[in-house]
């Protein structure tokens, strides 16, 4: 598992690559607790968002199991009115959650920046 310091350093690199970066966290899937985080907006409750997102990921995995899908969940892209949220599975027990401002960036940039920098989080 990466150290918290490595996690934060990785998020700083991702933030540098994404215009409009808002926040990112590495989340433990089972508990929904954050292993490391970075946020540019204090009002964005990253811990709560991470926790609820863990439930969303678990539900998705349950759906996949009930459909007997023999594949893995790679990521989930969510487009909100003014934000983009990306949930990317890093290991079977952790995922990266990232939020960015939709007006400043796009899905391709977000995905590219995350994929480029997450190997260290494994």
């Amino acid at each position: 598992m990466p150290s918290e310091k490595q996690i934060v350093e990785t998020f700083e690199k991702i933030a540098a690559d994404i215009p409009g970066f808002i926040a990112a966290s590495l989340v433990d899937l089972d508990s929904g607790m954050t292993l490391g985080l970075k946020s540019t907006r204090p009002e964005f409750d990253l811990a709560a968002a991470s926790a609820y997102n863990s439930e969303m990921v678990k539900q998705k995995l349950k759906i996949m199991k009930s459909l007997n899908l023999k594949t893995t969940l790679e990521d989930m892209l969510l487009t909100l009115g003014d934000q983009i949220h990306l949930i990317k599975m890093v290991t079977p027990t952790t995922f990266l959650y990232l939020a960015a401002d939709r007006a400043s960036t796009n899905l391709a940039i977000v995905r590219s920046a995350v994929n480029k920098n997450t190997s260290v989080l494994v």
Partner: protein
Amino acid sequence: MATLDRKGDAVVVRIVYDGPPTAGKTTSLRALAERLGQGQVITPEESGGRTVYFDWMEYTGGRFEGRQIRCQIVSVPGQRVLAPRRNLLLESADAVVFVADTSRSGMAESRAHLDQLVRRLATQPGLPVGIVLQANKRDLPDAEPIEPLRRSHGLAVVESVAATGEGTREAFVFAVRLALDRVREQLRLGQLQPIDPREESASELLAQMHALPLDHGAWELWPTQTEAPLNPTGSPPRLPDTSVPGGWIWPAINGRILLQEAGLGLLGAPRELTPDEWVADTAQGWRFHSSAEGLFLDGEAGRAALIRWAQLHASLTPWLSPGRCIALCETGDGRYRLWQVVRTETSLWKRLTETLQTRNAEHISAHFSEAATLCTRAAQRWAQAPWDLPCTLETVGAIDGAASFVSLMPEPDRVRPAQPADRRARLWQQLRALVNAEFGELHFLRDAAG
């Protein structure tokens, strides 16, 4: 054990931080509080920078089965003499973070403490409790390799530097995962109970700890007279002796005789165990003990307390080891102190751990078999006592073949009326753990259980 807070719609788990003294438990909690950015660490009392009862913080975060997770994060006092307080916390843990001092000077004690923790947790009834090993002080130049620790019990290891907070969050989240595994099992077995949040607070925990005696088996391991006391408050108090006035000692006549015997061969001046709590030992195996609550500004208040305590002792005489008296005496600085003086008797715990060290299978088998019988008798006897006496391997001993309470008596305001409890189960769990930890399941215990 985890509980359900229906009002707050949360699952409540307790993560206990254990480890030898000065390994970094309190530092870890404080660093964690800063990182999690929620709540503060409450320390009811500390002495010389060391935890006397516990450190406590609460953190609510994460989600489990549609509910919030509320974590009570508690660290134990590390000093051996405070072991009963530590044990109370371990009994309530859903997961344990073992903070090891991995410096060259701390590694041996960390290993021994971890071995003891694993054995201890194995004795506890109920679902198994997971352990995360937080290998602390990794920044020190003489930090030892942690592979032997990792291999010794097959635990997950997180390296940390608690002074900077590094590694503390990872260890905590890992422990929460372990706790949730336990909660899942509780749910499956229908054991997850709702509870009033007020019953699980730092102040309630403190009240429970106040009722506990200390581990007198640890006194032999205490620093020698030449070391500085925990919390120097000036001269040590005067010990009671045969010059104590009439009416200030119980039992009235035999007490004075006991004091004469007890006062011979003192091993140095009284030592301050915790703030205002004093102890002195003699070569003949007597112990003088006075708690912080045993200090009075006037003699009449002290005498009233002595009378209450004497009544308690008198009502419990059939259960107590002989060789006890209580006495009030002037401290030498205008105040009065209530002492209990107890002749040391070997507890079951001490006897059995010494037997294990002999590695003699025949002795071990015989002593454990006797201990099993004594435990059953102790449980039956304690059930008949009018007051609740702690019933553990540390407080039970054999006096003339009978199970007796050999520890220090709790102070009068900490003794409660007898409660129904499965004392036998608890004692047997402790016995089994000692046996299983060393040798695996032995036939004599199964047969004796009948």
